[in-house]
Each structure stands twice: as C-alpha cells, then as structure tokens.
C-alpha cells in the first residue's frame, strides 16, 4: 500500500565493549492519520506504521508502539548498549500487514 518505503538508519561502525551508542532511524512513510478528509469530504483511511522494534543479537533494545499522532516519515532516536560485536535488527510493522526490515553490523574493538 505505502509506496517507496525506505528505511534509513545511522549506527556507528565501531564501539568499545559496553559502550552506549545513539541510534537514529528514519523511514519514509505517509503515516495517514485517519483524521484527514479528501476533496469530496470522505475520510482518508488510516495507514500508519504501528510498531517498531530494535534488537541486538536477538535481545530487545526498544519496542515502540506508534499511534497516528506520530509525524510523517517517523523519526526515532534512542540509546543502545553494545556488549559484543553483532547485528542490530530493525523492524517496522505497517497497518496493512507489511513488515519492513533492515540490519546494521557493529564491530566492538
């Protein structure tokens, strides 16, 4: 349904063990709130990303429930601890059942 959904993520390439890093994510998505009306007065149906999760090597970092009040192209910034080298898995869940995923590697030196 939602076209051109592209996730963009910023994670540092390297970190030291146990360091707290900042992760920024942005995904292009209209986040149609279900409140707006089109020119003929019909309500435009709701179509948003309702959940976002971030996991590191299978362990949860953050799990966010998104409501229609989140802006278009949802931007999320949060902190994570990296105990070892591994992969961050990012997942966005769309209202229409689509799931968008992306992953980023990080090397602990």
């Amino acid at each position, binding site marked *: 349904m939602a076209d051109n959904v592209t996730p963009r993520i910023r994670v540092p390439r390297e970190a030291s063990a146990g360091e707290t890093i900042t992760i920024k994510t942005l995904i292009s998505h209209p986040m149609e709130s279900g409140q707006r009306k089109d020119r003929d007065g019909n309500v435009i149906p709701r179509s948003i990303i309702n959940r976002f999760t971030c996991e590191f090597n299978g362990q*949860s970092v953050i799990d966010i429930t998104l409501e229609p009040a989140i802006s278009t192209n*949802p931007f999320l910034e949060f902190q994570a601890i990296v105990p070892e080298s591994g992969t961050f898995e990012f997942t966005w869940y769309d209202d229409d059942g689509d799931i968008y995923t992306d992953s980023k590697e990080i090397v602990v030196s």
Partner: protein
Amino acid sequence: MSFTRRDTLRLAMGTAFAAAVPFKVFADVDADVAAFTGGAEIGEGGITLVAPEIAENGNTVPIEVDAPGAVAILVLATGNPTPAVGTFNFGPLAGAQQASTRIRLAGTQDVLAIAKMADGTFVQARQEVKVTIGGCGG
C-alpha cells in the same frame, strides 16, 4: 482608518475559521492513562519531557522523553482527537531510558509523558506546547 474590501474579507475568513475550531473533550486522556497505569497513583519527578514552547508547524513537533530506570514511557497529546502518541518499551540492551521522535499536535495543548518505573511506580511530566498551525488536517 478605513477597511479595504480585501481587509474585510480577510477578517471575515479569520472569524469563520476561529468559530470552526471544535471544542475538544478530554475524557479519552483519562482512559488512556488508566489503561497504562491500572489506576495506580502517579508521582512527579524522575522523568524529563523536552518539547518546544512554541511549535510553528503542528505536523512535526520534536519531543524527547528521558526517565532513568523506566521500563516503559507513554506519551499523550491531551488536545488531539486521539490523545495517544506512542509507547516506548525499553529492553535489556537499552543504553538509556531515553528516546526522541517527532509528533503531530492539533493545536495548543499539554503534552503528557508517564513513565512506568522498574519498581512498578509511575511518574509523569507535562509541558505546554503552543501550536501556530495545527497538524491534523481538516
């Protein structure tokens, strides 16, 4: 001073717009808070909510919540048609119980953040945001 035809039209449109802004009902906020806290008492302190005092565009208002030791933070926009904004659940690898995002605000209103602490208590923070152009469409 004399009104030109253009001035008069502009004035009339402004009045009509102000009259059309509907009065909001706040009952939904209490329901959302009760669903999150289970009716528990809510304290103050230990949570920071950063939001701009004045937001020119209600479509993207940057906010940040920070509550050290929290397991979950609920954010509500008390004046929106649907007050819920989002819930942040922090996992074991969360580096800090802090997150920022951008939200929509329908108009000038209070933004409310409630944190559930690890020991089961709740704390809240409130911040008023003045919105110049609302962000919920017509």
